[in-house]
């Protein structure tokens, strides 16, 4: 089956980002297809390249990136939510004259339309909120 996942949580605030990651891994293990993971609200922090937790804690952005790049998953970060929260790629950093960028490779910054398109196209949408 074709799945779309919407991830709203960062690793610091709730548990939804980790639940979504574990669910995504189980989906792929069962042979399903993930047509898109959409990071919205605080979920945009999962695309940050600057997260550096203590060694005894999981690095969720790193784990997400690994899954996304190894499996070739389409991963979209909501651009409006990301700009509000300080997660930007080099193009947006230039456009808004910000001093740096902090965006991992393998994700795309785009609009909410990508969430709605994936929702309609998928057989199942699963939302992970805090």
């Amino acid at each position, binding site marked *: 089956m074709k799945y779309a996942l919407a991830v709203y949580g960062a690793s610091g605030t709730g548990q939804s980002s980790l*639940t979504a990651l574990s669910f995504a891994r189980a989906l792929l293990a069962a042979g399903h297809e993930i047509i898109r993971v959409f990071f919205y609200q605080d979920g945009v922090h999962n695309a940050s390249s600057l997260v550096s937790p203590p060694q005894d804690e999981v690095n969720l952005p790193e784990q997400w990136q690994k899954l996304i790049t190894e499996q070739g998953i389409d991963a979209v970060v909501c651009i409006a939510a990301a700009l509000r929260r300080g997660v930007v790629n080099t193009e947006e950093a230039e456009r808004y004259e910000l001093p740096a960028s902090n965006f991992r490779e393998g994700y795309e910054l785009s609009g909410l339309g990508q969430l709605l398109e994936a929702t309609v196209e998928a057989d*199942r949408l699963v939302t992970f909120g805090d």
Partner: protein
Amino acid sequence: MATLHTVNKAGQPLELCLRALNPGDSVLLLEEGVYALYEASDVLSDLLRHIAVYVLEADVLARGMTNRDDLDIDMVDYQGFVELTVANDKVVSWF
């Protein structure tokens, strides 16, 4: 059109879920929603007459909870969570 409802807290998310259920739907308690096993056991035992209720194993174990032997609630892993999303026509998340 059976629906899987996921519930991640025992407060407002569980309350709202209860009034959105149709016969044939299923409920999966996850994250802090597993505390409903203690906090809302009366509600759950009522619910179980009409609705299948599941708890996510990782969250039960993490919190030092145990499933209720007196209630007919199945414990599932993430693979079981996936199967529930397949077996139902859509998923509604309450958080």
